[in-house]
């Protein structure tokens, strides 16, 4: 595991790459209409940009980029955007998630276009929040220096089932 004190090159390159990864992620989300892409892929890329900071700068050093306590709330906000579009369509007079009746005042064909975009943004936020939250739960299970950690398991149990 590379600590921040070890390599200045890793730190500088990671700091430089994170905004580009995020811009590419937004490109993938918004161009899901015209080329392969969409919400799931863009959400995974957004999570990847935050996980790069977590790996290079450590968990405490990257809290200013994306705090751990925002993981689950971002997931909830994504689902609320998705279901909110559905309820907005119901408020406009149609069925649930019927984008024709969104109350924005465009022609029905373009309203469906806008509805797909809103839904994909919701999915991207949900996937990003969930992936970052899963990583933050798995890392840092025990405080180091408390005696037993994951890497000192005692004598090597050399019995392999293969």
């Amino acid at each position, binding site marked *: 595991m590379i600590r921040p004190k070890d390599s200045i090159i890793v730190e500088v390159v990671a700091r430089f790459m994170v905004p580009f990864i995020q811009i590419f992620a937004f490109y993938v989300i918004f161009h899901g209409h015209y080329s392969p892409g*969409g919400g799931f892929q863009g959400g995974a890329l957004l999570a990847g940009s935050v996980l790069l900071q977590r790996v290079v700068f450590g968990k405490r050093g990257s809290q200013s980029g994306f705090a751990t306590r925002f993981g689950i709330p971002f997931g909830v906000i994504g689902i609320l955007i998705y279901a909110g579009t559905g309820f907005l369509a119901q408020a406009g007079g149609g069925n649930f998630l019927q984008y024709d009746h969104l109350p924005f005042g465009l022609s029905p*064909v373009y309203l469906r276009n806008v509805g797909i975009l809103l839904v994909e943004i919701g999915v991207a936020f949900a996937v990003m929040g969930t992936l970052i939250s899963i990583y933050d739960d798995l890392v840092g299970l025990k405080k180091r220096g408390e005696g037993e950690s994951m890497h000192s398991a005692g004598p090597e149990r050399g019995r392999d089932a293969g």
Partner: protein
Amino acid sequence: MARFLGFLTILAVGAVLVYGGMGLPAFGDPNAPAAVHVSDQYLEHGYHDTHTPNIVTVMIADYRSFDTLGETIVVFTAGLACFLLLRAERRREEEDAE
């Protein structure tokens, strides 16, 4: 003995899958049953209904958007289960130590 039974199970599953796979349509057949009824409708009407070129996105976000809502809730539930398993337990440990 257990490993021999394991290998026997794997061979049996492989034989059943190969036997079932012989009934599949040929690779790349345009008249396969899965490629004919509904997906033709999506490919013909998808662009004119929504003015969106990518038919896969139209399919998952417009024609089948209720299924995608369910899938998103499944992903969030998995993240929530992970949170309840690990982070809540760690918080309880820290409170016990105080």
